């Protein structure tokens, strides 16, 4: 029982990271109907820029909460800019050119970031500096909660809360929802569609950067190819929740994290990667629009 609780806790921690990445997929899909395959690489860039900021600013040697916050904010800014740049260079010129061409440029950008990453950062793994001294903050029987898990959870929740506020309560959020609902109509109503899309990329990329930092804290080995699998699985999480739905991505990410941890803990770790895709196929067959997606009807 205690073991189960511990696994659930680990799963939720890991799942909140998936959820942060999944939000970027789902928001971009919402406004552009584009599967942004370069998103996993933005997450990698988040971890990498965190690594360098921590070293340049000296936080790597003297762990502190301020250090963590500074590194987090810096890397979110870097990735926000990167996200906007990717959209501007690789996707905007293809607006209105069908939906497959941007998919290929997305793959191109993903390849570019992976390879540029290997060139600039080096192909071998780096160790993310311990910005927090790991210690146990809470224990009930066999279940131990570390300060790192707590930080990951709280940061993820805060960010998701902030996102929910932006999407539901601000002018930008309303514009974003309008573009996602019907882009041409939103344009006719005076919504600056291009700027909204740009902003969506910035938001999504910032969340991915935060995910990169949080992963660096709990699982310090980072390398230029680290974005591939988590990127793809976060995408699965977005589909699980219903692609295009913001609460769906949060729930999908958490669910996927918990299921993966339970499968690793109780069945076999070799099937860990497969389980995400099995869930994906099952959910597509029985509820293709995901847990929170609205069914669409086709007009003739």
């Amino acid at each position, binding site marked *: 029982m205690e073991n189960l609780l511990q696994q659930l806790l680990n799963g939720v921690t890991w799942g909140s990271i998936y959820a942060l990445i999944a939000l970027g997929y789902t928001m971009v899909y919402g406004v552009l109907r584009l599967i942004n395959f370069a998103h996993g690489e933005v997450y990698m860039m988040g971890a990498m820029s965190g690594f360098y900021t921590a070293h340049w600013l000296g936080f790597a040697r003297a762990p502190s909460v301020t250090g963590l916050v500074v590194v987090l904010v810096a890397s979110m800014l870097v990735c926000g800019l990167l996200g906007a740049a990717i959209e501007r260079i690789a996707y905007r010129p293809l607006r209105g050119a069908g939906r497959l061409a941007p998919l290929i440029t997305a*793959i191109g950008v993903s390849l570019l970031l992976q390879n540029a990453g290997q060139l600039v950062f080096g192909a071998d793994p780096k160790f993310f500096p311990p910005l927090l001294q790991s210690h146990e903050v809470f224990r009930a029987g066999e279940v131990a909660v570390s300060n790192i898990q707590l930080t990951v959870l709280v940061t993820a929740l805060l960010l998701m809360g902030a996102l929910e506020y932006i999407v539901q309560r601000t002018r930008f959020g309303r514009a974003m929802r309008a573009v996602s609902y019907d882009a041409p109509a939103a344009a006719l109503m005076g919504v600056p569609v291009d700027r909204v899309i740009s902003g969506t990329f910035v938001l999504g990329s910032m969340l991915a950067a935060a995910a990169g930092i949080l992963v660096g804290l709990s699982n310090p080995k980072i390398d230029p190819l680290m974005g591939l699998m988590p990127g793809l699985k976060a995408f699965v999480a977005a589909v699980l929740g219903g692609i295009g739905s913001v609460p769906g991505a949060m729930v999908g990410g958490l669910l996927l994290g918990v299921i993966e941890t339970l499968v690793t803990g109780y069945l076999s770790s070799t099937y860990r990667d497969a389980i995400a895709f099995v869930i994906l196929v099952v959910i597509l067959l029985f509820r293709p629009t995901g847990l929170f997606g609205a069914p669409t009807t086709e007009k003739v």
Partner: protein
Amino acid sequence: MSGASLARIGALLLALAALQWLAPLALNPYYVTILARIGIAITAAVSLQLVNGFTGQFSIGHAGFMALGAYSSAAFSVYLGAAVLDSLGGGGLVRLVYFPFPLICGGLVAALAGLVVAVPALRLRGDYLAIATLGAGEIIRIAILNIDAVGGARGFSLASSAYPSVDLRFDSLAGVYGVAVLTIAAIARLVYSGGGLAFRAVREDEIAAESLGVPTTRVKVEAFLVSSFFAGVAGALFAHTEGYIHTNSFSFVRSFELVAFVVLGGLGSLSGAVLAATVLTALPEVLRGLGEWRMILYSLLLITTMIVRPQGLLGQRELLPLPWSAHRGARRAGRGAA
């Protein structure tokens, strides 16, 4: 058969023979390997073009079918073929007769899987279908990774422990390109025939096609079946030319590469798929002199080409009037409907 088509087949055989005997003389073994890889990439790209380009269904899990073809054909050769070749002596002619069998075996296994994936998945449309095929491809790969009889995580070497002297590799360029030409011919005959209009009708407008009596589900399943068959053959060729396979070669990265072939070449153009598969397979090798920069330049070229020509290099055109697609009128009609 007319004299003209006999002459064409003769010329083709001559070209294949020249490739077989002249290429190893003129080029070092490294280039011969690259040439073989290009032939395999062409086969796989053309097979994917049937589903993605002509039928308008978006599959991004094609590497899974290649993996099935590669592994089943390799298992066929290691566990059965080695014994057969050993008892027959393994002479040149025996090998020539033998090698189509593992290829067909790989193709059939992949086609069966294609059917299993297609029947439920084709209820989905657009992006959801794409995502489902991506998932199916990864499931296939991870399942193979967990089968110990084909090496699991160690990879699978085409060598039989019972018959160590039998060479199961098949690195004949004529064989690889012969299969590529057969694949192109088969798919061209299929899509540029009168009945092939059904594929393009489904691509242009599924509802309209359905209302005109096109059995859309059957057409889509057919496309998947044929496409996964040839993907399996490509995988089998890969296994037998390389002599060693690992599931890492068949991850979603490989699937994306195949999608890049068909989209960059031009969706709905066989010659486009051939062109893009050739260029994109050769490019990393051509750029090898640039060292670490080569994959960066490769991805930049991919991005810029796509931005400059969003419809792909050839759009829906064919570079040559494919001699075996006699139905030119049907082709024009197909384009007119677009």
